[in-house]
């Protein structure tokens, strides 16, 4: 029983998810689910942060080390922000309770995945965090495009997760056990390298890194922006942690892994930044931006343990502003013209969007810059000079399309300047996201100290 207590954050979120399903019926208030779930997940995050114990639980199936705890707290917090926003704005359909429940279930999957140290637990938590996402994409009644997106997402990620499972089975076969600790030998033979390659395919698809990113643009374009806000950020953090843990586990001579990671990184950066330019819809733009950022993350992951920690930190640095932008998109409409003239109508949010976009470009003092700084330091330490040069150029290129958003927000003209309805929980969510984007950049050291992260 005692070890189970260590999982209280996950249990809290799970309990919250089940409660949310029925809250509407019980209380009759349309957005009751979110109202209950939001504080719950904040408590979950606090508990996760406060649990001091580190080390393996459930006979090594799970482990709580600094990076995983950091990821679990981040996932819980981001979930809390999202729920706060949903409690303020709702998800546009009347089935927001289900959306809340699905998101929380996916979050539980993510939190487990972050601390998984066993292939079986990894596979199950991966599926647990992905499946609700399929439904989140297409749950809005009568929306053919949403369904289409969801189906594509389903088929493609099922295909890739099966390839990953195939790889996992070989990994188990060769090493004789499913625990990460024993996977060191897998890298030796060609069969082992094949296994690792297949596993990486699954993780690449999870992070929507090229060349396995094809589901992302279509899925995001079809789905409601609020779901995209969640799906494009929280599951990715868990994915990154799993990737980093596996890369460390498969250490071996690291030959294949590094090459695969770097090729994936290069492709993602190029495809992500190139395709984002012509986009006019925020969801597609952010989809490709996600691809580009997973390119940077793969680069960091290929740079040893320091790189891994930096990758996880950067995943959070990417997730926070992206979620904020997508939430704004769902409020104002995701075509760039819908955002036109926002600065005139809602100056506060407009200036907050400046903070988010600049953080994604990597401009100090926002968290994006700090993430990139630590990532590039680790990468350069591993001598990946040319890839860092490409990454650095790409982040300048990315400024190009992020400025397209900024330009329409500030300098676009909008005729029907309808005032959005005021909603305090939504404002709280935005404020929290902006504070994290700013604070985590400048005041990073207390956070790093608390979680004991070393670069």
């Amino acid at each position, binding site marked *: 029983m005692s070890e189970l207590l260590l999982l209280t954050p996950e249990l809290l979120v799970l309990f919250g998810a089940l409660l949310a399903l029925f809250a509407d019926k019980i209380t009759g208030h349309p957005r009751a689910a979110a109202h209950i779930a939001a504080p719950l997940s904040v408590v979950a995050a606090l508990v996760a942060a406060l649990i001091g114990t580190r080390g393996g639980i459930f006979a090594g199936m799970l482990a709580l080390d600094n990076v995983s705890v950091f990821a679990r707290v981040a996932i819980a917090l981001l979930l809390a922000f999202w729920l706060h926003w949903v409690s303020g704005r709702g998800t546009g359909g009347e089935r927001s309770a289900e959306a809340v429940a699905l998101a929380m279930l996916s979050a539980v999957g993510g939190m487990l995945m972050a601390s998984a140290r066993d292939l079986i637990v990894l596979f199950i938590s991966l599926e647990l965090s992905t499946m609700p996402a399929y439904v989140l994409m297409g749950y809005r009644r009568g929306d053919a495009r949403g369904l289409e997106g969801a189906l594509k997402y389903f088929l493609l990620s099922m295909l890739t997760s099966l390839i990953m499972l195939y790889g996992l089975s070989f990994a188990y076969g060769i090493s004789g056990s499913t625990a990460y600790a024993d996977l060191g030998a897998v890298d030796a033979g060609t069969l082992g390298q094949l296994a690792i390659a297949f596993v990486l395919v699954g993780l690449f698809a999870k992070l929507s890194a090229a*060349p*396995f990113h094809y*589901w992302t643009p279509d899925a995001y374009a079809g789905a409601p922006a609020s779901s995209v806000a969640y799906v494009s950020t929280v599951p990715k953090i868990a994915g990154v942690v799993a990737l980093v843990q596996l890369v460390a586990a498969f250490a071996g001579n690291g030959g294949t892994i590094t090459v695969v990671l770097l090729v994936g990184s290069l492709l993602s950066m190029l495809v992500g930044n190139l395709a984002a330019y012509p986009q006019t819809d925020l969801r597609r733009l952010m989809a490709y931006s996600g691809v580009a950022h997973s390119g940077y993350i793969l680069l960091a992951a290929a740079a040893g343990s320091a790189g891994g920690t930096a990758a996880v930190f950067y995943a959070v640095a990417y997730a926070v502003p992206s979620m904020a932008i997508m939430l704004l998109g769902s409020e104002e409409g995701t075509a760039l013209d819908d955002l036109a003239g926002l600065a005139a109508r809602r100056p506060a949010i407009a200036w907050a969007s400046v903070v988010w976009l600049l953080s994604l470009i990597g401009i100090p003092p926002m968290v994006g810059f700090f993430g990139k700084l630590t990532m590039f330091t680790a990468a350069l330490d591993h001598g990946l000079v040319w890839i860092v040069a490409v990454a650095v150029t790409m982040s300048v290129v990315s400024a190009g399309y992020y400025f397209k958003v900024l330009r329409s927000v500030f300098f676009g003209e909008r005729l029907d300047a309808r005032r959005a309805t005021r909603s305090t929980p939504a404002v709280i969510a935005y404020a929290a996201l902006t504070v994290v984007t700013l604070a985590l950049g400048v005041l990073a050291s207390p956070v790093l100290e608390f979680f004991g992260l070393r670069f």
Partner: protein
Amino acid sequence: MDWVTLIPLLPALAFVVLAPLSRAARAKLVPLAVAAVLGSLGLSIAAFLAVWPGGHGEVWQASVTIAHIGDRAITLGLALEPMSAIMLTVVTVVGACVQVYSLGYMHREDRIGWYYAVLSLFTAAMLALVLSDNFLGLFMAWEVMGLCSYLLIGFWHEQEAPRLASIKAFLTTKVGDLGFMLALAVVYAEAGAFDFATVLHHDWTAGTATLVALLMLFAAMGKSAQFPLHVWLPDAMAGPTPASALIHAATMVAAGVFLVVRAFPIFEASGIALTITLWVGLITALLAGLLAMVQHDIKKVLAYSTISQLGFMFIALGAGSSTAALYHLVTHAYFKSLLFLGAGVIIHAAHTQDMRQMGGLAKKLPVTSLAFASGSLALAGIVPFSGFWSKDEILAVLLHEHQYVAFAIALLAAFVTAFYVARLWFRVFTAPTQQEDLHEGHRSMLVPMVVLAVITAVIGFFGPTLGDFLGHEIPWPALGTAAISTVAALGGITLGWYVYGRRTSVVNTQALKQRFPHAYGVLANKYYFDLTYGYFVVGGYTTLARALATFDARVVDGVVNGVAAAWRSLSAAGWTFDGRIVDGAVNGAASAVRAAGDKVRTLQTGSVRSYQTLIAGAVVLLVVWILVKGA
């Protein structure tokens, strides 16, 4: 003795007071400027007397450190010693005369206040230059004078001609100033400081000495309008005549000669620089003299005459005697400014600058004629007048240095000088009158002229005393050279009388033109200098600038924008690694056409099956790569 700093300070203060005021207020405060220059005159005479009795060196020196750089300090300072004492008197006397004269000449001008303000600034700068005890201070005063000459030439800036003349003057002298700036850099690199004491006592190797000397010579040629940098002085006549009298006759143009005199030890150390200076002087003296012969504008004649006389000073320097040059500088300052002031009265009376319309002014303007006569005779080099003594001294130095060829050319130049002086005199004063209402200048204009006339007549006798005052002996002219130069002068005058002065011949303006048509053409076009400069230097530079501007806007900017544009089209094209070879991986080169633009977008075909194939393709590639790697 610290009151010596007041000498340049008084006119400077006048400028500081006058400049910021409104136009009307300035006009009222004009007497303040005149008072300032008279004050400086008084102090200069006192300073001169303080140094007068013996030729002993520095009487007073004060300097201030304006910068510490590394372990060296850069100082600016003033020093009173024989040479600067003499120059002080010359500048303040001529300056005072010009300022008094301008009261009358410019009184109808509503911007007279600004004229006096700039004149005061100029006088202050010239005095600072003369007193300066180091090359940097000299250079700074030198440039400020360039600014004043720009402002004065372009005084009537509403009209086109003065505007163009002023920018021409500034830029041509600026070309020379580049030489000075580089010379300063070399001096600093070599001697580590700018003040005369350290620089001149530094043991210069022949090479660096030549470099510095030539650079300084180049600067002097720019300022003293020697060939080929002389083009700006004739055009500078577009400015008010008294200003020309002060600047383009007596002081500023002499600054070039003064610089060479100051840096003479370096010139002597280099040797070659002296010969070059000599030949620059010879060429300029002769060619400018010839040009003066064919000018119809009275001020242009005087301008070319100034260039020619400065040529003589360069000859003296080239011949190795800086004292002779200084002596000629002093005498020339007086008689040339006198001639310019005279010309001012003549122009006022005849309402034109063209000599062909003048005539018979001797009777109508008695005082001016007398003063003008004194100046002309001095310029021509007729015996009692100052010009004769200093020019003779130069010829004597040439003989003493056995420069016979140079002596011959100088003599020819002297002959030509006498000729154009005579031409001017007969044309303006004795030719039949063509205008009726000629009236004498106002009293305030005549008094300074008379003063200058007297000085021109008298100063010649003080040659030797000037010599031992400066420490270099100026002997009384030997009978031989005196005779030869007088013969040359008288010859020039008789020829001038023969061509222009005889009562019988009607005033034949075309006299020279018929006799030497071709030569006249060359002279009329001023040896085509202006045309060549105008076409090649100015024209060439403007076309180059325009070409570079378009180059910058189109190519350099284009290249950069091009890269950005190419990137945008490339990015829309979506450089992709497309599994299906048939479809053809898009060529990643930056030249991807926008049609192939949104390849990535077309890649997202929307069909799940194509995505699955792409994924499967990627996995197959991965497997193949591992197997190959493994084998």
